């Protein structure tokens, strides 16, 4: 409707101008609604501990690294950060290794139950996590996977996998099958054709879905909190110490969670729609 036929130039009356102003202030307002809370958190994170407790709050960050330094030096934080990164990287690798072939199969082959499979993949998102986490905790204790990074990464992979499948599916669908067929006629076997023709074309998309998997694991709270005791991830650590820790520690931790996520989402923004646009049809 934005590009509706505008055959006759209309006179910009005061009414439409006012409407336009209203419209744009609405847009700006919505943007502020999203951005302002993050900005406020960053102000707190960039204040010294005493300033965080102080009142009233400034509107501009004082750029004091006191809180952040305290946060990084706090017992267990470094380990939690490291755990978070390890788990997220494992999740990333696992979900791409499992998800990308599934995405490729969905985009290239027609098999029975394809539609049902796709729906099923999406439906796993609808499965409540508390229900998943508890039995897994029990099983993990039996198998000896409890409180390990790989165990948690496996759970996070189940969360990230639907997205990995759907994103890689849409990415592989974007590469015409003719290109692959051309490579076969030129003497490549299936693997070579994939390696030399398809892979270079899909690499950015695969990277994006890998980053997305990383973000999902990085942000996940409930399963991390339930499944780890000693090897806490950053989210679990923050949750656990929430009641005991001073405010400035919480805010610095919050900022430590937010900033990487912001960067990641910015990196994958182009692909955000791939997973839903296809899944809806």
């Amino acid at each position, binding site marked *: *409707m934005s590009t509706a036929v505008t055959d006759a130039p209309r006179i910009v009356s005061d009414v439409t101008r006012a409407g336009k102003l209203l419209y744009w202030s*609405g847009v700006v307002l919505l943007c502020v609604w999203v951005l302002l809370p993050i900005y406020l958190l960053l102000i707190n994170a960039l204040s010294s501990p005493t300033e965080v407790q102080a*009142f009233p709050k400034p509107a501009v960050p004082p750029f004091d690294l006191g809180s952040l330094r305290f946060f990084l030096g706090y017992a267990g934080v470094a380990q939690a950060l490291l755990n978070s990164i390890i788990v997220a990287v494992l999740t990333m690798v696992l979900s791409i290794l499992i998800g990308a072939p599934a995405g490729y199969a969905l985009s290239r082959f027609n098999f029975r139950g394809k539609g049902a499979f796709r729906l099923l993949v999406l439906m796993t998102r*609808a499965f409540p996590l*508390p*229900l998943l986490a508890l039995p897994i905790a029990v099983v993990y204790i039996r198998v000896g996977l409890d409180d390990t990074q790989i165990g948690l990464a496996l759970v996070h992979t189940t969360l990230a996998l639907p997205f990995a499948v759907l994103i890689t599916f849409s990415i592989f669908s974007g590469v015409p099958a003719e290109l692959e067929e051309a490579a076969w006629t030129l003497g490549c076997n299936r693997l070579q054709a994939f390696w030399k023709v398809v892979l270079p074309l899909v690499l950015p998309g695969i990277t994006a879905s890998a980053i997305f998997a990383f973000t999902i694991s990085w942000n996940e709270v409930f399963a991390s909190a*339930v499944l780890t005791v000693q090897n806490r991830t950053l989210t679990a650590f923050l949750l656990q110490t929430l009641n005991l820790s001073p405010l400035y520690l919480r805010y610095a931790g919050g900022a430590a969670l937010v900033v990487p996520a912001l960067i990641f*989402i910015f990196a994958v*923004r182009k692909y955000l*729609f791939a997973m839903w646009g296809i899944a809806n049809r």
Partner: protein
Amino acid sequence: MLLAVIVVPLQLIMALVMASVVASLKTARSTVLYIFTIPLGLSDLAAGLIWLAIFEQSGFLNSMLVGLGMVQKPILLLSYQNTGVLFAAVILAELWRATAIMMVILVSGMGLIAREYYEAAEVFGANRWQRFLKVTLPMLRPSLQTALMLRSIAAIEVFAVVIALSGTTLPVLASQVYDWQFNQQNGGAAAAVALVVLAISITVTVVFTRALRTPEGATL
């Protein structure tokens, strides 16, 4: 539970507004879209902490209120006595955090609607509002279904936002599971609550699948 009932419809309205805005933007579309999707990438714990920064006693809301001279000294907003405020804070935080996912689904759904429908509607003299009601909404049915299903189920599971803002003052289902499992060491009770979550989730899924089914013979 009540939380989900309030949050989801509000989110639906907001997501529809945001999606329409994005769909009708000509300039700066990608920037606005990126900004709108930021909360999508944030952890619910981070979202809870962000809103804690606003609502706590020496937080930004109090700073503003005092600055404007509306209250004399900072008031303790998040406390046992103020369950109403606590509740409102959690709703705001959830609105802020999780509307993005709905919006993304709806925007991509709107992208699938063929332009001809709008042109036809325009020919028949439908104004903007009528076009939205009679064309966009019905055509958006499948996306609405997905969005509502995912969001309601996620809303039932809401956890870290509530913990960050209220501690254990405001019990929700997921925090009950966590509490039974760890603080009370009662795995059975935890599992029971988790099953309640499952039951609600299934009900929600079934209801939405029924209510928003694409009519037979209708094609996109």
